[in-house]
């Protein structure tokens, strides 16, 4: 009887030890691999565990050319328009216009909230749209935020990501800038489900172009200072924008929830492995 209990106990301890050992080595192996690749060897240089640019940006040469083209267009046309818009319209007016355009995006956001099964966010979007369209005077004001319904964004590319569709390679598209095939496909669907697309279909070209140009100018104005600062302080502006795009998209897809990846870089682990720290 005593021998039987001892065998059980020994088996239990052995199983527990094996489980603990496997758990520790598995997560350690992930971290070690990441750090080896980043800090010790001449192997590819991912900037974070999730991004390996050799795979992610295989068309870098072409992308850089397109980036330069977009820069030239921006400097010649869009940026001066955004600057003029800032000079003419006071901050309060610009904020109202931003609110109005954002309110028009609500049906698209709701569509994607629902597709992602985000009930709470969908209800938040409905409440925002109702409140801002009525109390907020057709969306020019944003009283919904004060009432506890803060703004969030969703798009179809994020929905595809939630369903496991890979982003594909990084592409700098003409005029639209940083993108991926998933993001481009998402933009097409978002454009198709946007109520204004259907409304403007029956209007003359002037209305359609005005809306598109207004959106671009308003968005560019909001980024005037940020992009100037990044360009001035960057050693490689193309890489800065690519990295910001990737980090922002990953943050948006995860709704701002930090990753719990075991391979996440840690200074202590790097020190344990006697690397550069």
């Amino acid at each position, binding site marked *: 009887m*005593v021998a039987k*209990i001892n065998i059980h106990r020994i088996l239990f301890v052995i199983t527990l030890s094996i489980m603990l050992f496997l758990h520790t080595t598995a997560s350690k192996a992930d971290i070690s691999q990441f750090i080896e690749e*980043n*800090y*010790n*060897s*001449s192997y590819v*240089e991912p*900037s*974070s565990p999730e991004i390996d*640019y050799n795979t992610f940006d295989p068309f870098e040469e072409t992308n850089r050319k397109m980036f330069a083209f977009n820069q030239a267009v921006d400097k010649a046309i869009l940026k001066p328009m955004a600057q003029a818009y800032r000079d003419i319209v006071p*901050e309060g007016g610009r904020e109202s216009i931003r609110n109005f355009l954002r309110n028009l995006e609500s049906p698209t956001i709701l569509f994607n909230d629902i597709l992602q099964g985000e009930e709470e966010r969908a209800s938040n979007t409905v409440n925002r749209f109702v409140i801002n369209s009525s109390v907020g005077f057709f969306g020019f004001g944003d009283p919904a*935020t*004060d009432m506890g319904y*803060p*703004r969030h964004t969703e798009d179809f590319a994020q929905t595809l990501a939630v369903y496991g569709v890979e982003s594909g390679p990084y592409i700098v598209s003409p005029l639209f800038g940083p993108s991926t095939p998933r993001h481009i496909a998402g933009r097409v669907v978002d454009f198709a489900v946007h109520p204004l697309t259907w409304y403007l279909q029956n209007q003359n070209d002037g209305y359609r172009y005005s809306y598109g140009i207004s959106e671009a100018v308003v968005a560019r104005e909001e980024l005037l*200072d*940020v992009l100037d*600062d990044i360009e*001035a*302080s*960057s*050693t*490689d502006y193309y*890489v*800065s924008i*690519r*990295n*910001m795009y990737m*980090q*922002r998209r*990953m*943050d*948006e897809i995860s709704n*701002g929830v*930090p990753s719990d990846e075991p391979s*996440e*870089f*840690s*200074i*202590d*682990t790097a020190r*344990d492995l006697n690397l*550069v*720290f």
Partner: protein
Amino acid sequence: MFQNLNKYLIGSLLLLVIFVSSANGREYCDEAIAFINEVTDETLSIINSSEFTKNQKKSNLSELLNKNADFETMGKVMLGKYARKLPDDMKEVYTDLIQKMLTKTIYDRLDNDEEEPDVTYGIVNDSCRTKGSKNREFLVDGDVLKDDSRLASIRWWIIINKDQQYKVIDLTLAGVSLTLQKKDEFTSYLSNKSVSQLINNLSKKFD
């Protein structure tokens, strides 16, 4: 009877070990959150002050970050595998440039050039989790509440150094980590240029 007692003892000991280690992490996390709240409050009070000029604000922010951030570690993270190629006599110059670069970047991202700057209040909805192997690294997440009631997400990566002081080693604003962004830039730059050229480039921009 003694066999059962043994089982209970082993079980209790195991639970105690688990409880103590998680309580330890929680305690450090509480301290980490308090540290971050203090740093955030001081940063925002500098940025939002109407008493200081832009240059005074930058100088005060630099002083604050110098006290609370580990620029040496940040600089090494940014260099990645190229950190080994940093000559000893350039380490100090490089760390100094990293400090200037990050102070400027953080200032530019938090401040805006509007006539009526956004008044931002302290950090709200904070949360903390440990990372790394020794319960000495933390990610503190929070939202900065602005005067227009909007929330801006902010994430600090901090570490307890060998003198048992909390030090910031990264700041993520609106989903973009400054350290990772700069690391990416440096890696691209250093793929066809030397560390000395990088230092020259940085001194032209930030010295």
